[in-house]
């Protein structure tokens, strides 16, 4: 079980091109690109959406790419944090940093509870159970009063970060989001390259063997699950403040499917794959928005093509190609 991305993981070894070989260079290039992007004509709102989803996808990738666990209910963490931080900012008047922290903590808590339940089963069952629990949360938010049902929590104030940075300015907001994304990205990067991350990958490759070596597999998987849930929450809380809205879209199962697609398309088990995947999917949705149902159809087609012919994803294929060229 759990060898879903053995191939993807293998291609992410340092054998690939220079950006991929020296991740520090890659990260610096990525940050520089995101830092310049709004200054050269890209809309900050579009970029902020990309950054929020990139963080969400990176958090998801930690679980599937390095833990081998396919969650089909990650929208619940995105949405829960969104609702909590939106409610905290609007109804309780918390400053943005307080609202985001509170929302993230709420998702961490939900991650601990659902983790305890779901970690007992693997593979397909794990996917079905996370999907079912997320659907339960969806109905809960649909009926709860504080979420305002179909309307969602609207007109959430962005407020002033640390009391003096006015986030109503698109640039102040943008660089705040970039900082949050970078924080989350580095936490994940650090986790993957720590002993914890190594054990996690060992469990993914061969769980019985890892257990026989004395590792408590369930504890490692639970920790990965909670970390992934927490960072997904960070993405959701930030998204709610940026777009001043928390709605049912973020807890619906289509959102859970979307993050799977971003990671699959970008490259499971690669460091930059989720970021690329998020960028492509958000751009696609942006351009296809006027065509209604075509977004769903094309999303589905990308799924099919990725699974049939393109399992390493964009970054995975690129790394493999560069690796082959180097011989």
């Amino acid at each position: 079980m759990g060898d879903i991305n053995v191939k993807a993981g293998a291609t992410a070894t340092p054998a690939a091109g220079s950006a991929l070989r020296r991740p520090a260079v890659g990260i610096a290039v990525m940050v520089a690109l995101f830092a310049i992007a709004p200054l050269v004509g890209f809309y900050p709102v579009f970029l902020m959406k990309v950054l929020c989803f990139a963080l969400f996808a990176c958090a998801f990738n930690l679980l599937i790419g390095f833990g081998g666990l396919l969650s089909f209910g990650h929208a619940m963490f995105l949405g829960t944090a969104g609702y909590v931080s939106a409610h905290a900012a609007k109804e309780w008047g918390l400053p943005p940093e307080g609202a985001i922290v509170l929302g993230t903590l709420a998702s961490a808590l939900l991650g601990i509870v659902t983790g305890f339940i779901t970690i007992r089963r693997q593979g397909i069952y794990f996917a079905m159970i996370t999907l079912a629990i997320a659907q339960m949360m969806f109905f809960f938010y649909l009926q709860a009063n504080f979420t305002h049902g179909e309307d969602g929590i609207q007109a959430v104030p962005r407020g002033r970060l640390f009391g003096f940075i006015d986030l109503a300015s698109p640039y102040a907001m943008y660089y705040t989001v970039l900082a949050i994304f970078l924080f989350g990205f580095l936490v994940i990067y650090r986790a993957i390259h720590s002993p914890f991350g190594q054990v996690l990958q060992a469990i993914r490759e061969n769980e019985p063997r890892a257990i026989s070596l004395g590792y408590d597999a369930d504890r490692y998987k639970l920790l990965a699950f909670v970390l992934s849930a927490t960072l997904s929450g960070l993405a959701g809380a930030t998204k709610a403040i940026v777009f001043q809205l928390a709605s049912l879209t973020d807890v619906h199962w289509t959102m859970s499917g979307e993050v799977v697609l971003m990671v699959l398309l970008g490259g499971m088990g690669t460091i930059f794959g989720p970021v690329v995947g998020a960028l492509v999917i958000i751009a696609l949705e942006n351009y296809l928005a006027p065509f209604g149902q075509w977004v769903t159809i094309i999303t589905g087609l990308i799924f099919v093509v990725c699974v049939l012919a393109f399992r390493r994803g964009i970054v995975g294929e690129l790394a493999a190609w560069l690796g082959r060229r180097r011989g």
Partner: protein
Amino acid sequence: MSEIFGVPTQALFGQLLIGLINGAFYAVLSLGLAVIFGLLNIINFTHGAQYMMGAFCAYFLLNKLGIGYWWSLLIAPIAVGATGMLIERTMLSRLYKLDHLYGLLLTFGLALVIQGVFRNEFGSSGLPYQIPPELAGGYNLGFMFLPKYRAWVIVASLVVCLATWYVIERTKLGAYLRAATENPTLVQSFGVNVPRMITLTYGFGVGLAALAGVMAAPIYQVNPLMGADLIIVVFAVVVIGGMGSILGSVLTGFMLGVVEGLTKVFYPEASNTVIFVVMVIVLILRPAGLFGRER
């Protein structure tokens, strides 16, 4: 009017009946999922879309060709099952050597495509489908009114489930099937064409979903998204029942339909979530499901 636990009996039996109807659909759908999973080791996420295709097939047969309900019960499962076999031959068969999760992802993508295409064509409002004249009306049982069509759905799905159980557990064909589930290589060496058996099994499971769709068409409206949320509930049913036994998944399906119906009477706010709550409780107490084996 008499009451039980402060609830009018009429309402209680009414909801019980609705529960049994929903349970019948849960049972047929989870049965199809279990049959497919048994041999292909794939969780068929397209199942909900194929259930919807069955309903649309009946709708087309009636409105374009004038073919009524009874023939639809036969034609729709065959037609939709054939599309399923095409999917299995062209796409799913390439994934058997890989992790099972890729099958889930592929069928999820296919479900999105199918539902998107149908929504493009027919919008998201439902299309009506008449109850066949032979089954219009109902019986007055004294304590409640039982519409004939609903009684038919419950009986028909029970018959379908039991027939499937009989074929798989008690016939030679079923023995081949169970043997291929345990060890496909060995069965192939005895001269059984296992790849063809896999294709037919997938077609059969998909046909069951389409059959459920035809039966559902007169009760719920024919709607491109009718299977989208349903499939998630059916997943929960499958997790609760475990995939070990066919009778288990049928029994779980009916049972959870009834539980859901009763919740609607006593605590309506939880009627959408009760099955998921049951799933969580079962997972804590019996991680393999009520009838499941660890595998």
